């Protein structure tokens, strides 16, 4: 199946995200600048080469040492011009890579040599990604083995996928269609086979697709929470061997060492795999490690479950 390419401008891929036109415009401006500058050099060099070609061995070129004015001019003017591009580019970059609120979450696990995606509502995909047009998406990604990179040219977006920690990016697809998905960080033998397709769908189509009847991540996470015995120590009232996890997500947690940390996804992942790294104040270091026992997808499911635990009563005591 051939992915559609931008038909009006065969030199560009499809432009299917909020940030893509901005990047294309910036690129166009820099290309124009480059063609002008390069063309100028080519022309001047050619012109000088011809106009001042050697007429005889007795030629006597003048003794010109240089010109401070010219040096300053051609140092500062180009610098200021490209600084303009720096400011413009950094501005776009900040907006492209910054967190955006109210984003729909997608969870990506990369492994040699496939992309596994989990939607919170339940559907799981391999090498495919279905998303609704016009919604801001937040990708949370991790690798099970080596470095990978999640790259969607039509979105003009990529972010490396690392083992051992989550990386994130935000994007808003703007055009319905099917687009290439590539791994863009060399990851071994089948690196060029770690590819897929992103399907941007109309909102209504997506709603239909996503409610396919699979168990949600939260539900699966709850099963794992029980299966691995987490529920036996992490009692909701905080009186168990481990701290309560209700309402803990994104709150500030005080550790035994006195340091205060934010309980984000990485905190939970670390606590499951390397529990002695951060011990919550007033609790003992008795939690066993689950390194090697739970897959990255399982971890994401458990974290989704923990995130869903909200305080039931009004005015409940906030977790310290």
């Amino acid at each position, binding site marked *: 199946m051939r992915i559609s390419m931008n038909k009006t401008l065969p030199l560009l891929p499809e432009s299917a995200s909020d940030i893509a036109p901005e990047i294309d415009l910036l690129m166009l401006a820099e290309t124009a600048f480059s063609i002008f500058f390069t063309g100028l050099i080519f022309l001047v060099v050619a012109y000088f080469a011809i106009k*001042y070609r050697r007429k005889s061995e007795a030629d006597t*070129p003048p003794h010109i040492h240089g010109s401070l004015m010219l040096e300053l001019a051609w140092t500062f003017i*180009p*610098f200021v011009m490209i600084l303009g591009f720096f400011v413009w580019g950094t501005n776009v970059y900040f907006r492209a890579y910054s967190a955006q609120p109210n984003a729909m979450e997608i969870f990506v696990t990369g492994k040699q040599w496939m992309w596994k995606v989990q939607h919170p509502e339940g559907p799981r995909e391999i090498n495919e990604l279905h998303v609704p047009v016009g919604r801001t998406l937040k990708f949370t990604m991790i690798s099970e083995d080596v470095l990978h*990179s999640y790259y969607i040219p039509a979105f003009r*977006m990529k972010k490396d996928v690392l083992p051992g920690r989550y990386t994130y990016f935000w994007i808003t697809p703007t055009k319905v269609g099917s687009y290439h998905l590539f791994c863009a960080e060399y990851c*071994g*033998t089948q690196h*060029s086979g770690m590819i897929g397709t992103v399907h941007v769908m109309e909102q209504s189509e997506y709603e239909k697709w996503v409610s396919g009847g699979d168990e949600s991540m939260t539900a699966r996470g709850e099963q794992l929470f029980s299966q691995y015995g987490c529920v036996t120590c992490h009692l909701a009232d905080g009186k168990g061997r481990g701290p309560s996890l209700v309402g803990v997500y994104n709150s500030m947690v005080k550790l035994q060492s006195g340091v205060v940390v934010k309980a984000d996804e990485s905190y939970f992942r670390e606590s499951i795999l390397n529990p002695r790294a951060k011990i919550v104040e007033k609790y003992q270091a008795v939690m066993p490690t689950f390194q090697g026992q739970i897959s990255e997808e399982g971890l994401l499911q458990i974290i989704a479950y923990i995130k869903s635990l909200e305080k039931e009563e009004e005015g409940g005591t906030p977790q310290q």
Partner: protein
Amino acid sequence: MSATHEATPPTSELNYLNNGWTWQSWLLTGDHKRIAMLYVISITVFFALGGLFAGAVRLELITPQGDMMDAETYNKMFTMHGVIMVFFFLIPSVPATIGNFLIPIMVGARDLAFPKINLLSWYLYVIGGFCGLYAAAVGGVDTGWTFYTPYSSTYSNSAVIATAMGAFVAGFSSILTGLNFIVTIHKMRAPGMTWGRLPLFVWAHYATSLIQLLGTPVIAITLVLLMLERAFRIGFFDPALGGDPVLFQHLFWFYSHPAVYIMILPGMGVISEIITCFSKKHVFGYHFVAGSSLAIAILGFFVWGHHMFTAGQSTYAGMVFSLITFAVAVPSAVKIFNWTATMYKGSVSYETPMLYAMGFIGLFTIGGVTGVMLATMAIDLHLHDTYFVVAHFHYVMVGGMVMAYMGGMHFWWPKMTGRMYPEHWAKLSAGLVFIGFNLTFFPQFIVGYLGMPRRYHAYPEEFQVFQVLSTAGASVLGVGYLLPLIYFTWSIFKGEKAPPNPYNAKGLEWTVPSPPPTENFRIMPVVNEEVYAYAEQHEEKALV
């Protein structure tokens, strides 16, 4: 005197080449010129080998499917192409050959400060090279020349340690060369050879040597840590232990970015010499060209994070790296402008070295402006790890550096070998190289922006037309490189004998015979004129 052909020539005809024919006189030499020629031979061998690997890559990429070789083999082809070209060709290229040969002569010395260390540096290069060849022989390495962990430390089933060892040992060769140059330039200049009279070739190598000294040790320790991790399964970069694979990238690029300036600065030094000679004119803005070499060397140490905009490094760090990367483009641009201005009102002739130099100016500019595009973080989000990057660095490294190397080899060939090369064949090759090069790499800019990632064995059909153009270009380029190999070799035996100064160039190297005697100068020079004193040369002639 005996009648055999190996008899020592009469003293008046004695030069560094015919001054002794035994194995020992070459393999145990302290003469910087002989060491330079040893390097020329070994570097050419590795260039050819790296070229063969490139040929394999380009052949496979003619078709979108991976049908010529399996994926693992393809991955080894591009990895070994990169490793050989970076560590065994580009880094030593000009400094170890032309630099070794000329720097003592250009400053007016009998030899470099430490001839034995110079010889040691060649042996280290050769040993490193053998490690690389051994790695190739036992099946090759498939990590990419960048050796990113954890693939290289834990997952790859290839000869990582042997290859890393090769690069490690070759790195010491590079450090020792740089050390030798700095001491020589500081301490052994002839009377009258002030810093302000040093040829720009020397300034360029001084700046290069600074980078070699400060940067190379960091890749050395990085490779050691990688080898330890792989051999003993200890975990500096292993996330399961809390190690950080991104730390490897920081350590790796801390050297490997300045390394690209080790590669290009000597080439820029060559261009300065060629442009002045073939415009018969003093360089425009000597102080600015010299200063820009130092500026590039210094700024070049602070931009390494521009290889890691998508790697998970902090956005603020990324901003700083991006800004300084924009800044480092400026001194390179300053050189381009000054070289162009040198041609203004000059007396320009089109010998082969000048053709390569003019080609360098054009192609390096293209490489440079595309570098500015990549330095723009927002654009890099799209272009990182695509063919656009491949095209960018080949424009600066091949369109820039290799053309400078070819230009320099042609320019100083008469001096080094005492023979002229055949000019028409040389001009033809230069033309083939220029055309072949652009055809090979320009389409890669386009297919990169279309989204084709690099290091891909098989690819979507719609990218094929660009890959085919690229391979077609590569075959032309290959011929362009093969011809000099043939005619340079021919010239050694059958080439016209070269006079001391075939191009009427200024510079101490042109005041000694071609080839020079072992001790360089029969009478140690005293310098009493400005560098590039072409106008004075005309005045002298006019007085006659």
